């Protein structure tokens, strides 16, 4: 019985792995024969790819870094400050985190237009920095934090920045890594924002490149997909333990 279940599980894993594997294999199989001509065409004839790849890297790193800077103090405030309506405000954060992108795309568009940063890099980056997801996850994680370390630190310094960096951050490091990886993957995969909020081709990301099936041939798409996987795969290999331990939810309420 156990053997059978094990076998079924491995089979299922194989099925789930198949799309990834097939994409990699097919990238070496352009024109119906094994070879690197797909990669040749991508690297030497497709200069748009470089611009868009760079844009994807830039957005993902900048957004991830800045978001971590915003969510650490915010989650800390939710854990340690006492004020009226705290739970209600947190509830609001959860609801906002659950809102689908399409609901927010028009508000986003109007907001950016009136601030004059539509069709700029800042217009993509700024709204995503304040996404509430990280605050919610990090606050849940902070419930298991040791408060005495912070108390001890308060005797030494009055600086909030130092308390956050030396007493809080080390304790929630795992969760910060997990959220960081998650946010990075989210940005790396974002499609709607660059598609709808940007007109300038030079600012768009690789995901737009993939959705543009009219101008890009399959022969280039498979190798491009493989190159696109690499950064996120590397990050996962470095941080997979943190990802699994950092997303432990103690309670949702």
């Amino acid at each position, binding site marked *: 019985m156990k053997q059978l279940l094990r076998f079924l599980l491995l089979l299922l894993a194989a099925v*789930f792995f198949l799309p990834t594997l097939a994409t990699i294999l097919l990238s070496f199989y352009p024109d119906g024969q094994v070879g690197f001509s797909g990669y040749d065409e991508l690297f030497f004839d497709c200069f748009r790819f470089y611009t868009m790849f760079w844009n994807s890297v830039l957005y993902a790193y900048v957004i991830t870094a800045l978001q971590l800077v915003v969510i650490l*103090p915010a989650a800390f405030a939710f854990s340690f400050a006492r004020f009226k309506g705290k739970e209600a405000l947190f509830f609001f954060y959860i609801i906002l985190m659950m809102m689908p992108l399409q609901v927010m795309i028009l508000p986003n568009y109007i907001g950016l237009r009136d601030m004059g940063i539509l069709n700029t890099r800042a217009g993509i980056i700024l709204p995503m920095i304040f996404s509430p997801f990280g605050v919610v996850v990090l606050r849940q994680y902070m419930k298991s934090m040791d408060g005495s370390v912070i108390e001890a630190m308060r005797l030494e310094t009055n600086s909030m920045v130092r308390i956050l960096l030396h007493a809080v951050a080390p304790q929630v490091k795992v969760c910060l890594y997990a959220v960081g990886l998650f946010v990075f993957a989210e940005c790396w995969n974002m499609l709607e924002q660059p598609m709808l909020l940007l007109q300038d081709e030079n600012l768009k990301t690789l995901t737009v490149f993939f959705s543009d099936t009219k101008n890009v041939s399959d022969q280039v798409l498979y190798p*491009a997909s493989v190159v696109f996987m690499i950064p996120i795969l590397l990050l996962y290999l470095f941080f997979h333990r943190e990802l699994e331990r950092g997303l432990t939810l103690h309670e*949702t309420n």
Partner: protein
Amino acid sequence: MATVKPHKSIRWNTKCLLCLVPSLLGLLLFYIIPYLRVLYYSLINNQFKKDFVGLKNYIDAIQNEYFRLAFFNSIKLITVCVPVLILLAIAVSLGLTFLLKKLRLVRVAFILPMLLPTASVVLFFRAVFGQVENELPLYLLFIWKNIGICIILLTAALTTIEDELYEAAKLDGAGGFSLHVKITLPLILPTISFSTLMAIVNSFKIFRESYLYYGSNYPPDYGYTLQYYMNNNFLKFDYQALASSSVLTSLLVAAIVSAFLLAERRYQR
């Protein structure tokens, strides 16, 4: 906290509160104020005349056959895919934790889809399911894509259960299946409910997958979800239709999420 003097404690509290300011300010500027303006847009006839028309835009949206189709398809996706996804994720997580403890590599197969760009595998799905003329490929894509986060959450919860609990239960004569029903399930119930919530929300995000899969703004009827309706109205600059459907969808999501969290809170008491 007892050793801290009261006035100092107030100062400390103020400092803690200040930590929340950047996040709140950002939310206000980029989410809340723009949302309120959309709410206003949904109540006027057009951006130039700005006449107040009450609920007319909402009535138009509800009477629009494409809005109804999109709404129906989105709800169908939730009611069909989410239960399948959660049950499958529970089964896989139990298997990974209790049957394949040593083969950690196996879980990578399930977690990778969550991280990998959808764009890169859509081609493969299209090659395999290109001939299928119903919503099945989209549903499979959804499950494939979203099982990773559920498995991470569930396996994390499962590994925190102490072995002694199982040992004790085994001594009492419980075994195999009943062991999990009696011990494992109640302990991971909060995680199951959170995973379900995440899955429901992600079902609203399926647009990315389906847009790349169908490769256009006009998918076949069975693949036409709420996101397409909004996306297309956005491209047509039909702000009133978009504003009213955005508000309706946000209310739907807020209602689902609140009901879920309240039910959970009640259960925990």
